[in-house]
């Protein structure tokens, strides 16, 4: 009884809705045709273009559209079809109507290229993840990975790497990442054997992400150092790789390398990927603080980043002033933010920097100051402040942070006169480093001239991944067409 009522209610909206899914369906069919020709002629770029077009359609995919597409693309009743259809949610009641309307007019394709089947898995996955049905996404992606093992064609690589990404994503969203580690490793192994470079890159990044999720920095570093490296195929994968590399280097106390990687990642990331850039910037700020340099204020006022970077701004302030008490307060105040970003341990290391900066300020301002006063100004809060202060000052002198001597008998610190700096080699070395930097920049710019600059940025969406994919596909297509022109 209730079913009849529902059907009647859906009669009127069906007509108006039929036209909308049809156009999406039309697009999907065009994409399917594209994939067909691509697989027939073995041209990777057609497949790449197909994937790019799909990304644009992502918002309009619904359960009904996908089921009708599945009916069109795969032979109904075949094993693949039943499997995939079971994943598609049957929430829309007018599934029936649309099905009968569209499927009668099209004849199913004669042969089924493997790419098309994998592609179907791909759009079903997209739908499930967008609708937040994560456990089903998990099941679907595992099925697709199992299917992928049997297919060994270069044309599938582009779609396959997207599938790997969503596979890992669905497991991560259900908090089950440790399970798939061995699968990812096996996939990476076979990708390397088949010279599937895009797959290799994607899988390496996914593995690193997996390890870093559980804080297993040691293993991540071991994998990264042993995995084969090559020219990056995809800008986004390269950015991700740089970010993970930066994180590993930071934990291993190699701050200079870390700073380079993180800043490069933040620079290369497309403007629309706000979340990613925020993360990069957070870590870059901390690394710079640990290196002893203060990041400029303009970093904190970048568009869209003000609020998330606010705790780090206050932290920088505390370090810049060299005030231990303020530092302690900031640390407590934003403890949860730092715990969430997993930067808590790094911030603990910053305490040392705060003391150093404080000491430096004191040594510059006073020519002679008693150690008692030093301890007071530094707000050391310890049981034996004078002795502590003395050893801290001694170490700072040894490390070259301040230029002074200690007069033990009188218990005071005497700052040295800073001589005329222009009569030494200092200016020459400073100039040299700047010149080298500019020349390097020039060389890199020349090398990068092959790629067109990313001038068109659409601000419509705030889903960072979708925009990134679009950019990447455009670039790849551009490159491929350029190659064609050369012939």
């Amino acid at each position, binding site marked *: 009884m209730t079913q009849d009522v529902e059907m009647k209610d859906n009669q009127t909206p069906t007509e108006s809705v039929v036209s909308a899914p049809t156009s999406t369906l039309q697009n999907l069919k065009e994409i399917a045709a594209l994939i067909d020709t691509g697989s027939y002629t073995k041209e990777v770029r057609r497949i790449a273009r197909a994937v790019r077009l799909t990304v644009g359609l992502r918002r309009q995919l619904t359960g009904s559209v996908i089921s009708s597409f599945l009916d069109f693309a795969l032979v109904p009743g075949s094993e693949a079809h039943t499997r995939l259809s079971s994943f598609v949610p049957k929430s829309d009641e007018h599934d029936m109507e649309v099905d009968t309307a569209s499927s009668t007019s099209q004849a199913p394709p004669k042969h089924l290229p493997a790419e098309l089947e994998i592609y179907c898995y791909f759009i079903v996955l997209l739908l499930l993840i967008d609708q937040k049905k994560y456990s089903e996404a998990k099941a679907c992606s595992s099925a697709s990975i199992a299917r992928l093992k049997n297919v060994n064609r270069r044309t599938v690589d582009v779609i396959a790497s997207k599938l790997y990404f969503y596979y890992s994503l669905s497991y991560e969203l259900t908090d089950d990442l440790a399970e798939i580690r061995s699968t990812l490793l096996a996939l990476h192994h076979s990708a390397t054997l088949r010279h599937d470079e895009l797959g290799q890159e994607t899988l390496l990044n996914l593995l690193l992400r997996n390890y870093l999720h559980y804080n297993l920095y040691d293993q991540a570093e071991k994998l990264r150092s042993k995995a084969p490296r090559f020219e990056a195929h995809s800008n986004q994968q390269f950015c991700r790789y740089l970010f993970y590399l930066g994180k590993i280097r930071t934990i291993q*106390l190699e701050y200079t390398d870390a700073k380079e990687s993180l800043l490069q990642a933040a620079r290369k990331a497309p403007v629309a990927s706000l979340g990613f850039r925020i993360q990069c910037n957070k870590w870059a700020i901390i690394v710079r603080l640990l290196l002893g340099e203060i990041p400029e204020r303009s970093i904190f006022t970048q568009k869209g980043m003000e609020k998330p970077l606010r705790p780090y701004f206050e932290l920088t302030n505390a370090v810049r002033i060299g005030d231990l008490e303020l530092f302690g307060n900031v640390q407590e105040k934003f403890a949860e933010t730092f715990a969430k970003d997993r930067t808590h341990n790094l911030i*603990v290391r910053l305490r040392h920097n705060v003391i150093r900066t404080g000491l430096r300020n004191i040594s510059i301002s006073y020519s002679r100051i008693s150690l008692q006063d030093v301890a007071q100004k530094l707000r050391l809060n310890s049981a034996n402040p004078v002795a502590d202060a003395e050893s801290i000052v001694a170490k700072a002198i*040894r490390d070259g942070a301040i230029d002074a001597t200690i007069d033990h008998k009188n218990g005071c610190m005497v700052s040295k006169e800073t001589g005329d700096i222009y009569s030494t080699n200092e200016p020459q070395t400073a100039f040299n480093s700047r010149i080298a930097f500019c020349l390097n920049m020039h060389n890199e710019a020349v090398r990068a001239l092959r790629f067109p600059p990313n001038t068109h940025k659409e601000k419509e969406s705030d889903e960072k991944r979708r925009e990134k994919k679009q950019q990447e596909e455009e670039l790849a297509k551009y490159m491929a067409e350029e190659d064609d022109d050369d012939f």
Partner: protein
Amino acid sequence: MDPQLTEVSQQFERFKAAFARKDYNTCSDLLSQLKVLLTKFTSLPPLFENSPNAAKELTIARDIYEHAVVLSVKTEDQDAFERDFFQLKPYYVDARNRIPSSPQENLILGLNLLRLLVQNRIAEFHTELELLSSATLEDPCIKHAVELEQSFMEGAYNRVLSARQTAPDATYVYFMDLLAKTIRDEIAGCSEKAYDYVSISDARQMLLFSSDQELLTYVKEEHPDWEVKEGFVVFQKAKETAPCKEIPSLQLINQTLSYARELERIV
């Protein structure tokens, strides 16, 4: 109970008895035997099979390794410590869900952190630190090691030495002694840069010697460039770098050549 399990338990009891007697040689022998017996259990890492006695086997194996670690501290064998600790680690990490946590876990983790600190492997120290959850970080054993590293980095060496008294466990004493030696070298290094001269009594206090004689032998052996006269230790400051009048010609030539080369490349 499984006959193998019984045998292992008995051996283990003998091991514990020998340990209490401080008979370390017997302990080492028994330990090697125990390790061989443990290979027969399949529920242990790396296999982690689910046999019926899995929980008991895991617990016993973990206890054995924990004792092995403590034994290596007593015999002052750092390599053995490292080996046994690495074998113990999977029990803490992967088997966490299968067996209830061990009371000695934090103690052993703290010992490991301390060992890395003493061997100056600070990068690994921090990597290990990342693996610990925030709850573990509150534990006194771990906190002790973390604060030690902080004070060491800052240079507040007297804090490090006073921490020796507050060590949470007797097993820490061995590492603290090693640390004391490292600190002494550090203090000496800092002092020679920071002070022009120090009186002998002050030097003795700073470097933690109990008598002047020890101080003098130390100075003679380790720092021959320090002079001792009139009751003062004078750090060699005569090598004050006068403003360098020489030009490092080779370096300048190299730099200029590289500029020329790069500029040529600019089309």
